[in-house]
């Protein structure tokens, strides 16, 4: 998270401020926080006024993120547009993650100190699927090596193994080739 005030250092303090009768949350680095005299740090509330950050980072909505594609990305499942996501700072459903995918890495990086990928717990049910996918990836690599070495018999065997695993993944028999 980057400091809202200087935009340079990473923010370490969440400050709640009274601005024209409204309570506003601001993320400050330790230096800007120290300069802030009417400091009022938020406590129980969940971290940040996300939408404020997003609108600070992307002042002209999607235009500044993706200058080529001007049309508005819309989530087919919940109907949220990318600009609505920026405005309220929240996703409407899990499909939003796919619909807004081109812009998300940039956003996740800013919130998570440059990180974009999950490295933690995997639900047991997904665990199996993920494992199979990784196995398939591995087999495909081996297959490439076999083909390059003109070991076509081995390559065919690996292809069959991939087929079996893919079928398992789809929960049915798959048409190979």
């Amino acid at each position: 998270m980057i400091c809202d005030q200087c935009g340079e250092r990473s923010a370490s303090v969440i400050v709640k401020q009274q601005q024209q009768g409204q309570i506003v949350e601001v993320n400050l680095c330790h230096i800007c926080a120290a300069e802030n005299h009417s400091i009022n740090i938020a406590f129980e509330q969940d971290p940040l006024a996300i939408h404020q950050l997003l609108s600070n980072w992307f002042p002209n909505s999607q235009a500044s993120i993706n200058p080529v594609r001007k049309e508005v990305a819309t989530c087919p499942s919940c109907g949220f547009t990318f600009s609505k996501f920026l405005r309220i700072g929240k996703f409407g459903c899990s499909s939003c993650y796919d619909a807004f995918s081109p812009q998300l890495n940039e956003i996740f990086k800013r919130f998570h100190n440059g990180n974009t990928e999950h490295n933690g717990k995997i639900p047991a049910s997904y665990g199996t699927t993920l494992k199979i996918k990784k196995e398939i990836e591995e087999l495909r690599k081996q297959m490439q090596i076999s083909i390059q070495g003109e070991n076509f018999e081995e390559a065919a065997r690996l292809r069959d193994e991939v087929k079996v695993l893919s079928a398992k993944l789809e929960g049915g028999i798959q048409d190979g080739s």
Partner: protein
Amino acid sequence: MAVERFFQPHASSWMTNDGKNVDIAMSTRIRLARNLNNFKFPYAFTEDEALKVDKEISSVLLDKGNELDYTFSHISIEELAELQKEILVEKHLISPYLINSHHSGSVLLSDNEELSIMVNEEDHLRIQSLQSGFQLQQAYKIANELDSLLEKNLSYAFHEKHGYLTSCPTNVGTGMRASVMLHLPALTMSHQIQRIIPAISRLGMVVRGIYGEGSEALGNVYQISNQLTLGKSEYEILQDLENMTEQIIQQERRAREAIALNSPVVIEDRIYRSLGVLTHSRLLTTEEAATCLSDVRLGIDLKMIQDVDMSILNELMIFMQPAFLQQYADKPLQPKERDFARAKLFRERLNRNGINSEGEDLA
């Protein structure tokens, strides 16, 4: 009504003052944000979906909660009186966001109040595990077991690359927010806290406090929590937070020793004045109560005060809040009346429990 118990001013188990380093680390909290796969998230779903989500989740917990040796009570937020809602917020069992929601929501509470599961808050599920003292691993273990149990019976919104999908981009990934509540009077008094905060941010953590008039956190209580939920595993996040917290605890101990050594009479005077205020005043504002509670805690830790039970101080931090005071006084209170009720509460609780009240009149 069995749920009545949750609104009584009795201590939840996380207020009991057990656990490691409890003199400085007052409590530990783990929160996991989860969503179900086949429903829109709370910012987009309909009331009908909200009801279905609530039903799916609560039926799993009410059915299978005993697999984890917990008994859960299901409480619909709409069915609660205003005061009851506020009491649950003041007890940290639900968030203010949940009671202001436009949709049907509920909370499932374990009998010992260590586990609370909010349904249809910002996410379909917010699993919260509270422990007294500094117990990150234990708090996570409990939350994680509950999470695994739920996952067996529900289909979570999960993405290979992004992890657990949440309404807010700040929670995606592990969905985990781990936090430790720290009482840091000596680091605050010696202004060392300003030097510590930047170090914390470099490791992807944040510090929060409630700041009063000056630049000192109200009651010298700070909350340290992880900010990152992507890129690191739960284990790594907890490890970082644990290491950082341990270092802060050591520094606080050193600062306390230095203070006790360098200005014993000044500190002793301040601590006993604060004890006097808590046990004898007739009007007590939140700020003054928080400041004095901090001093008395420090006095207990420095062994200057022997006859005050720390767990009562923990309870008072919760029960001195407006909704509890109103319940205690049994009528709506204006702010000034609150200060009066607060003072009365402190006198009663502290004098009844061992302090020589020297003719204190409890009426």
